[in-house]
């Protein structure tokens, strides 16, 4: 073979190799809040550990501004992203309004929100007449906290509710003395306890089953790109599996530190909390629990966001890509 042909063949092979290394582009949407929170862990870990690259995917995280999980389905429809992270109430609402968006994998199941109070408050019952900094009244956090308070005999009318969006802002309210108790997610709940604030209860006491955030895409886009979707959910499944591997613990802790900017000790405790028996915060491999989504729909109905007859959870889920990726 002439030298020129050999060189051309080598150049072609190198180009093909480089294309594989770079992979097929998949635009993944993430709200700015999610990007900086523990809820980005499954995708962030997969990206850091090369799990998408292993599947031939060049994952590009795209943050739409103005953001918010309530806008992520719009980002699918205006071609800003191909797949998006979204909180389930927003997916359900969009689908009921005619969107063909559907959940293809779970990202976070039952989130752990801790009701944390000033040190002198010992029990939930002591919150009567006190100021509770609460999240968006129509959201998952407020749903679960109202249930937790009720479980301990406190009605919404017994306390002075103050709407404060975001765990960091609620922690600031607690520290500043403007709130007597607030719900906090990880890792801020652990930070607050380390500072002497008292844990009164956690959301899971009242809401043991939930489907908080999912990866969603449009049915039409997924049908046209089914192989890419299967590879995406396979990478995500591998990320969840990695979180449970003791040998990979340091990589997971490093990812939590990187995302949330907490000291490694707090990140270790977050991971220990998720690993406790009975906790269902993280799916095993991205599997979607329709009972968790049915609970979301029931809460939405309770809050007057949707009316009876309630839709079947299966309507918002497509498990075929998980099945093709070997996830049951």
């Amino acid at each position, binding site marked *: 073979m002439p030298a020129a042909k050999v060189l051309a063949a080598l150049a072609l092979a190198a180009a093909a190799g480089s294309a594989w290394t770079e992979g097929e582009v998949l635009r993944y949407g993430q*709200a700015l809040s999610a990007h900086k929170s523990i809820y980005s862990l499954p995708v962030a870990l997969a990206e850091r550990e090369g799990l998408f690259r292993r599947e031939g995917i060049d994952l590009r995280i795209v943050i739409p501004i103005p953001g918010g*999980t309530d806008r992520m389905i719009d980002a699918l429809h205006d071609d800003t992203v191909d797949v998006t992270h979204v909180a389930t109430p927003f997916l359900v609402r969009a689908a009921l309004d005619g969107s063909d968006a559907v959940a293809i994998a779970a990202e976070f199941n039952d989130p752990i929100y801790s009701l944390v109070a000033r040190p002198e408050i010992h029990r939930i019952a002591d919150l009567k007449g006190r100021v509770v900094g609460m999240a968006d009244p129509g959201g998952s956090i407020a749903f679960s906290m109202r249930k937790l308070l009720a479980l301990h005999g406190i009605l919404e009318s017994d306390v002075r509710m103050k709407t404060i*969006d*975001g765990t960091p802002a609620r922690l600031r309210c607690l520290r500043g003395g403007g709130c007597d108790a607030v719900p906090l997610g990880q890792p801020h709940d652990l930070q607050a306890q380390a500072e002497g604030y008292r844990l009164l209860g956690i959301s899971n006491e009242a809401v043991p089953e939930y489907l908080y955030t999912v990866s969603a895409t449009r049915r039409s886009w997924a049908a046209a790109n089914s192989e890419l979707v299967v590879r995406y959910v396979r990478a995500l499944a591998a990320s969840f599996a990695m979180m449970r591997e003791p040998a990979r613990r340091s990589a997971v802790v490093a990812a939590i530190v990187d995302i949330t900017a907490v000291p490694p000790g707090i990140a270790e405790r977050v991971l220990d909390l998720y690993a406790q028996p009975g906790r269902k915060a993280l799916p095993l491999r991205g599997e979607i629990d329709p009972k968790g989504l049915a609970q979301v729909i029931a809460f939405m109905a309770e809050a007057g966001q949707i009316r009876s007859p309630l839709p079947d959870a299966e309507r918002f889920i497509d498990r075929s890509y998980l099945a093709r990726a070997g996830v049951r």
Partner: protein
Amino acid sequence: MIRFRAMRIAVRLALLAIALLPAPALAGANKDRGQDEVGPGPDEGPSYFGVVLDTAGKPVDDARVTATSRDGLAMTTRSNAAGAYSLPGFNKRINAEEVKIACAKPGYRQVRVVRRPAQSGRPLRAVETECRLQKS
């Protein structure tokens, strides 16, 4: 001509106002509902703002403006009626000099992106760019 110049001055003043907004105000503009919100913190680098114009210098509204870091993380927004846009900062670890700004709109092609030089001796709080689109 005078009207056109006045409009450009107005756009520049509006952009200056955006750039001088304190970080919490920008956070409010990007208010995130439905999940936990994390506003700009001490780890946040300079924000990005500017204007999208056509080749005649007129503002282009509803153009998609994307800031992309070297490692592929992207933030995207749309220009308003004055062609103006603003995006929050990436993490401080991301070198603002390496963040690429691009603009796009169906029926147009990007012809130029001009980054305004930062004032020397002052900490970089915001990066201003002008993006030009030409009808294709």
